[in-house]
């Protein structure tokens, strides 16, 4: 009896969690006449793909999609390139006094700055550098945003690798960098992949920086493109929902791939769940 009640509770929670997502998917697949019918058509409707075609073959959503892909990939790669050596140094080298922890927490504190605080100066700085409305400008910002996260996550993963392993490799004639690349990184590969996945998700989902730093059609990302449609006078719900579904699918796929590290990734590496 008690078990049955528990399952009923869990199923209700699951329905509440998934119903809005399901509704968005159905709107993207419904003809206009079904979208806003009364009573609402939760299940019975004829699915069509016209909205996806409208959004991505003729509409500008394919431009936004490409922009989002490029931005997420480039900024993740840059954040890893800069962050992995830093994390390794914080994990391995000897530092004077408390320098190790002080540097680590300073790096973390830059991540905890509310974006709205740095957005005004960043906007003015990028305007001066003629980097507004360019993917390069936004990629820079995303790199700096993800960098502290990379350092904290990767430092945790490096800490778990015994020092002796690379010391042995260095005795065999490897340099520091060689030992990192050929011995240590292969050992932390799952952690590295998880870290990359979280950077990709953050860059892919990010809205505020993109909203302010890219205002031309050619430079918009997928979230900004969707948002610009919501605030328009006449909203094309079908095409927008289709774009929304396309925006959420990669995230759900990536997140399920990194499920094992979800807790660690979402708590900035603080909880080793």
């Amino acid at each position: 009896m008690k078990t049955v009640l528990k399952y009923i509770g869990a199923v209700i929670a699951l329905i509440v969690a998934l119903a809005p997502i399901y509704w968005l998917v159905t709107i993207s697949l419904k003809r206009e006449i079904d979208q806003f019918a009364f009573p609402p058509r939760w299940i019975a409707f004829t699915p069509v793909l016209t909205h996806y075609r409208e959004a991505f073959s003729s509409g500008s959503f394919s431009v936004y999609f490409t922009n989002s892909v490029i931005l997420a990939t480039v900024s993740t790669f840059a954040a890893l390139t800069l962050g992995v050596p830093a994390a390794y140094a914080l994990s391995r080298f000897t530092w004077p006094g408390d320098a190790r922890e002080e540097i680590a927490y300073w790096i973390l504190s830059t991540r905890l700055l509310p974006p709205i605080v740095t957005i005004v100066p960043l906007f003015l700085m990028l305007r001066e550098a003629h980097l507004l409305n360019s993917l390069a400008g936004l990629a820079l910002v995303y790199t700096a945003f993800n960098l502290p996260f990379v350092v904290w996550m990767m430092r945790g993963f490096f800490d778990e690798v015994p020092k002796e392993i690379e010391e042995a490799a260095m005795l065999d004639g490897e340099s520091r960098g060689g030992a990192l690349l050929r011995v240590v990184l292969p050992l932390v590969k799952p952690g590295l992949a998880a870290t990359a996945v979280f950077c990709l998700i953050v860059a892919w989902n990010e809205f505020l920086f993109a909203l302010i730093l890219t205002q031309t059609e050619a430079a918009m990302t997928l979230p900004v493109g969707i948002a610009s449609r919501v605030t328009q006078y006449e909203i094309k719900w079908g095409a927008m929902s289709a774009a929304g579904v396309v925006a959420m699918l990669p995230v759900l796929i990536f997140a399920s791939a990194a499920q094992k590290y979800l807790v660690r990734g979402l708590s900035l590496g603080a909880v080793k769940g």
Partner: protein
Amino acid sequence: MIRRLANLFRVEGFKWIAPAMIVLVALSVYPLLYSVKVSLTSASGAFTLAHFRRLLDDRILFAAAWQTLLFTVAALAIEFALGLGLALLVDSLGKARGFFRAGLLAPMLLPPVVAAVAWRLIYNPQFGALNGTLRLLGFDTTRLTWTSGQSSALFSVILVDIWEWTPFLFLLLSAGLQAIPVEPVEAARIDGAGAWRIFCDVTLPLLKPTILLALLLRGMDLVRIFDQIFILTQGGPGTATETLSLYIYRTAFRFSNFGYAAAMSFVLLAVATFASRRLIRAMGPRRA
């Protein structure tokens, strides 16, 4: 200070972290300093304290700060209670645990913009799924205007946040529950303690570090809330759902008053710094 910095340059690891530090200084520290300058500059380019004086008698700012506080406290309390309840519930389900957990996490992984769009489809008073379903069940929905009603807007926006972020507290608290050793719980049971007593006296104290961390992480994000409200209501109707982030955004990018926006952002920074200090302290001992 200078000698310590000079010492740092000689450390072997310094050249490994230097590139990362340069990027962070250029794109986090420098903007912050630049922001100080902007906040002290008038529209004509002269030095001024007017922006900071204006902070003191800006009624909209007070309203936005109050709404941000209300939003943060209400959402955090409910998300915590629901998240803990769900964590305990799902934890006790045995084999089906993984299935439920994966499904329950979906809302927080979506791009916030997409989540907000889904809720606009649901909340719309005329053709939305929520009022439609309620009407189907025989309710009168003429007065249920959700995000477009002056008095219900803030509540409706909080509801979306609860939907979206309860999974986050659920996830962290689940992880915390699984990390609790079984022995103290077993010992209490053998001593004859009831389930409620065990929960209050054994489980909760052991879970406390995780609870603190989860509340701080979520609280910091709530204080700066922007995306969902921007899509759902743009701060309206009127200023019913305006938060600090939205007001700063409007001031800077709708009214082009960068100086005042920068001054206000230091208010938000002060709140966030207070929270992040606590967070950093809470994260500290875990690494040792």
